[in-house]
């Protein structure tokens, strides 16, 4: 089982939950930028969870599936066709051997996830199949897909044997992308970091009272925020300490940087805040030029919201699995 890359798209990478546990060796987690979308894509195709999927950025790839199987698209809405057949988003679709899936450009959002039943089975590196472009780990030395790549698909051990028909069709049900995809571009929650008090009062006001925009040079390592310059009361000399996805750093330019999935494990810039983990996937879906506004909340509230999101997500995953069982697509 494999899938061949005919056109790579703008930046398509293989992603899973990332590689935790290696930060002391300088290795960050990486992993999908929009974890809930990635998990839901896996669920829709009946994967157990944890399988690697494709993260597409702005413009998707064109892929040929060598065997019949199941796919699902989540995250930012992306035009998708197999010949004349329109592939609906957030819905499991049956594809036949030789199907050529053409993914187009996203009109809103920044990242779509393509899950394949069985998962993209490239060799794991340090326990993960995630491509870390910054650290150059994962598929082919940590690079994005290129035309000609052939990606193996994992075995489908706990799935009913299916008649290898030539039919291409979508299931009659799918998921509502809301609340998993943030169409409203709502405010991003910021918890204050240890250097927040060092921001000049005017800069503190500006964080909440104005709009930033996602910079052109944003990537999987960081979302760079343009539009507002923030000043410190006085320059701070800091030594390097740990950094995390979600950390909002303020480099000397005054334009804040939000570290994303491929955050380096250490950093030496002032840490003015931390984006709430529940809102990080929303920020990951903002593309260069998109507006970003912040609202303040406490870390305690952020933990509560993370719990609520996780419960809702787990309930949704369970519902999807039940439905697939009823449809006879996975075993009980």
């Amino acid at each position, binding site marked *: 089982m494999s899938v061949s890359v005919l056109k790579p798209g703008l930046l398509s990478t293989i992603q899973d939950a990332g590689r935790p546990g290696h930060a002391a060796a300088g290795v960050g987690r990486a992993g999908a930028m929009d974890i809930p979308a990635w998990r839901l894509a896996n669920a829709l195709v009946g994967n157990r969870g944890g399988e690697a999927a494709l993260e597409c950025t702005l413009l998707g790839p064109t892929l040929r599936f060598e065997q019949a199987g199941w796919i699902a698209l989540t995250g930012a809405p992306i035009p998708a066709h197999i010949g004349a057949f329109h592939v609906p988003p957030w819905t499991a679709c049956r594809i036949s051997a030789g199907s050529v899936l053409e993914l187009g450009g996203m009109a809103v959002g920044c990242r779509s996830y393509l899950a394949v039943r069985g998962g993209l089975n490239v060799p794991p590196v340090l326990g993960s199949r995630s491509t870390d472009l910054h650290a150059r*780990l994962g598929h082919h030395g940590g690079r994005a897909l290129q035309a000609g790549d052939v990606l193996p698909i994992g075995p489908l051990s706990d799935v009913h044997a299916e008649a290898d028909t030539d039919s291409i069709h979508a299931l009659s049900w799918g998921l509502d992308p809301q609340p998993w995809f943030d169409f409203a571009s709502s405010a991003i929650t910021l918890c204050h970091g240890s250097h927040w008090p060092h921001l000049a009062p005017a800069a503190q006001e500006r964080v909440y009272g104005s709009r930033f925009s996602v910079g052109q040079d944003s990537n999987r390592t960081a979302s760079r925020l343009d539009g507002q310059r923030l000043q410190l009361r006085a320059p701070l000399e800091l030594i*390097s300490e740990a950094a995390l996805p979600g950390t909002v750093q303020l480099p000397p330019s005054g334009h804040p940087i939000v570290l994303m999935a491929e955050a*380096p494990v250490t950093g030496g810039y002032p840490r003015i805040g931390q984006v709430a*983990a529940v809102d990080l996937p929303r920020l990951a879906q903002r593309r260069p030029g998109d507006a970003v506004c912040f609202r303040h909340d406490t870390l305690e509230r952020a933990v509560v919201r993370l719990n609520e999101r996780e419960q809702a997500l787990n309930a949704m995953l369970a519902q999807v699995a039940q439905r697939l069982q009823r449809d006879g697509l996975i075993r009980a």
Partner: protein
Amino acid sequence: MDPAPIQFEPIAEDALLLRFGERMDAALNERVRAAVLTLRHQLPRFEYIPAYASVLMRFDPLACHGATISSHEALQREVLAALGKGEALIHALREQEIPVCYRGAYGPDLPQVAQYLDLPIDEVITRHVSAEYQVAMIGFAPGFPYLLGLDPALAMPRRRDPRQRVPAGSVGIGGVQSGIYPDQLPGGWQLIGRTPLRLFDATATPPSLLAAGDLVRFRAIDENEFRHLEAEQLR
């Protein structure tokens, strides 16, 4: 005098920072490493990431849900209890010799460094190989060691124009620190030499040649030995 108390900073839903101080200092770094050793032993279910003067602790915030106090406060108590037991683990320090070719293209900034420091090139090399270093932390990129112990006479600011591509193995000076680029990376440190050793190999166990606390000595080698060792690494 008792050392300053640890400052606890909840920095993310799943992360608590333990800060021992704000300086780049060998004694402070020693406290960091001793704490990490004790915590890994006593509370092995968490991940610990040591830096110069702080430790980041990562945990699963969803596993602690339902408790009456926040997970950060509960963890802070656990950490203080673990560290308060007073049992220090004695850890044999690993010593690693790093062969370095300081000549020609291997140390492209060496002439400017010598000029800036007002020292002959040979003196810069002698002072760099005479010191004993200790890995304070691994960061920036997989396997990148931040070394304490640089001869103060060799301290020099970073380059004003950082390089887009520093070759793998480059040994650099950045302020009072010395470090080694494990891979081709962008960087602003002054490059005075290069090692043929591989500092990071994702397929090796452990993947990073060096870890926080390791002692490091540099040994000057010539170009022939560099090429010979480089060929050995590829085998």
